[in-house]
């Protein structure tokens, strides 16, 4: 019975994640605007914008390469696949144990690589350190003990600092929709990985409703925390987020050290 429920949970989770990713982007924008004294856009705006964008015709340059046609789909699918592997409202989803955070980091890295190629290169190489931070944090988290909280902190910092990635200036129509959705989804995956690592978050199929609420609350708090940090603290403004990624990476590294120190007999 649990297996069937696990499959149902996985399907629901898979459908929920792209929508939640867009809501997260909307929530961040709304919180940022409110903190700056503006009314701000609706939380649902990114979600509502998807329909018209998906229906719009794609404009492609005559000299566009074969990759330009494939990359937006691959970027979104890779990020979506990563989202499938990180449980949200229940930890007994059918696919939750298939991969681990290393596989999640790999899929996110694939999406970031293809997105950066489409954008014509890397604007800031430091942005590429978010996934390695996830790798290292995962390493520390697996060890448990004192490494856990440090790993969670590193993961949260890296996730808040670099969630999305630079979107190609030339993207239009469904290409743009897919790249925007992937950017929101990427941040959601990193935040969900943080939730996964927080001790005490309920697991098991019987916990769906409270699990959903708790997951949504933690992810929402991280998003609002990011907006507060951006408004109140200069280093967290988008142009200077590299410090956040580096700090996240360092914390993740400390988590590795702590984790390994606990493993030594």
């Amino acid at each position, binding site marked *: 019975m649990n297996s*069937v429920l*696990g*499959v149902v949970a*996985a*399907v629901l989770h898979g459908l929920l994640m792209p929508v939640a990713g867009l809501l997260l982007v909307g929530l961040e924008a709304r919180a940022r605007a409110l903190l700056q004294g503006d009314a701000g856009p609706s939380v649902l705006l990114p979600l509502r914008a998807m329909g018209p964008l998906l229906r719009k015709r*794609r404009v492609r340059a005559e*000299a566009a*390469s*074969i*990759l*330009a*046609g*494939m990359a937006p*789909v*691959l970027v*979104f*699918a*890779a990020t*979506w*696949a990563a989202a*499938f*592997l990180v449980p949200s409202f229940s930890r007994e989803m*059918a*696919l939750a144990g*298939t*991969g681990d955070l*290393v*596989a999640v980091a*790999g*899929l996110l*890295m*694939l999406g*970031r*690589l293809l997105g*950066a*190629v*489409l*954008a*014509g*290169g*890397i604007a800031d*190489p430091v942005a*590429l*350190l978010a*996934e*390695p931070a996830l*790798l*290292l944090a*995962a*390493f520390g988290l697996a060890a448990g003990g004192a490494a856990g909280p440090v790993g969670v902190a590193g993961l949260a910092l890296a996730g808040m600092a670099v969630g999305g990635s630079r979107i190609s200036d030339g993207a239009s129509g*469904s290409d743009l*929709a*897919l790249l925007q959705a992937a950017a929101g989804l990427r941040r959601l995956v990193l935040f969900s990985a943080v939730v996964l690592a927080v001790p005490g978050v309920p697991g098991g199929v019987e916990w769906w409703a409270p699990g959903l609420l708790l997951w949504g609350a933690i992810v929402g708090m991280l998003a609002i925390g990011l907006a507060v940090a951006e408004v109140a603290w200069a280093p967290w403004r988008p142009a200077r987020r590299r410090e956040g990624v580096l700090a996240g990476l360092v914390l993740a*590294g400390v988590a*590795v*050290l702590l984790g*390994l*120190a606990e*493993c*030594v007999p």
Partner: protein
Amino acid sequence: MVRIDASVLPGRRAAVLASLLAALGTAGWLLAGAPGGTLTLGGGLAIGLDRIGGFFLLLVLLETAGVAAARDTPQGRTAVQLGGAILALVAGDAMTLLAGVGLAAGTRRGPMVAGLALLGGVALLGGGDFAAMRLAAPGVGLAWCAMVVAGLWPGVLGMFLVARLLVDLGGTAPGGVAMLGGGLVAAWGGWQAWRAMTFPVLIGGLGRMLAGMGLLGASIALAGRAIDFAGPAALGMASLWGAAVVLGTSVPVLAVLAGVAGTDALRRAAGVMRSGGFFGLASLAAGLTVACVPPGGGFAVVWQVFRALRALPISPVEGAVAAFGVAAGVSFAVAAVVRLLAIGFEGAAERAAAPRALERNVMALLAGLGLLAAMVPGAVAALAGGEAPGAIGGTVGLLMAGLVMVTAVVTRRLGSEGHRVIVAGAGAVEMPSRGLVGVPGLRAVIGWRKRLAVWGTGRDPLALRPLLGLALGLAVLLLLARVVT
């Protein structure tokens, strides 16, 4: 008389064919159980091919085919260097190994001399006889030597030396030093690749990063062996073999690219991959493989290294340096590959690149092998009783294929036969690991060749219903497989 800079064979086609045929023969020999013995040549030299030498000989021959397919490139190996590499691979004792490595080093000077001197010192142990050296168990000295070798020889030969020194002759060599070295070499190689402005530096850097990962794999295997911990030891060995396969198949694709671009400068290769078809796809596949992102063999190596490191009780400093080194190496490699692909696919073409059929086919073959390398370590680890990353990779690959299909259908961009290409990919990934979707996968593999070009063009869209049905079917299969297992 053969000049030191003479080409291997006068005709590129002949060289490629000869290399591929020799590779086929070597693969057959390995599949037949690698029979053979040691032959003493006189003058203190002995030859004898074993499994390790045979495996690396296969890779060297594949690499040679790739390098020979690249025209007008300084990456081309000379006859003497190739002969030296082969002599080192079939060496039956340490003196022959040293002679082969000396010849393969060719005219290169500087740190290579130090490396050769170090190898010479190792060769003196036990009188140069491999069996005596195994009993002598030189320990930490061999670990240091392997570290230097991995840093100096970033190619397949360097990886072979690491395997020979640590896995075969290492015995009880401590894994810690090699683990530190592996992390540092991986990070250094990635950094070099990221800073590279030319193809030779890029290729050298990526090769060095993979050599570092191979060294790390070997050190993990040693550490696991020392405490009778079969799982991590198997994962470590699989990482070493996987890194070698990626190095021998995907890195030469970049040499072919340089040959097609007709220049060493990365910037001048703008637009060279844009021609599409096999050439573009092979470049992309090789780029993803060496950048260590899914679904390439490089990612399988990273995955196994992390799994093994987490499972082993190792010193925090060694483990942290190793984990940091791999993470840093991979992020630098991703940055390097982003730049290469951005220049090659999206850059404004300075010259019309026209890859020839030979180059296209060799690239497609090597890139395909590089992608399939993800399966080899999985199979090795599964046979050794460890975890089976191939099965996990297969499920994740199938999941991604299904999601690509759903996304492509929803955004109405799938070409008429694009879905079969996806199923072919999913089938090829899944079949060896779990045997799922065997029939549709096989059927699609048979007809994949003519359908690739349709992908991404957006013309002739297929009806929505069968595609959604197929996507749903795949998803149900995947979830059922998960439930059953």
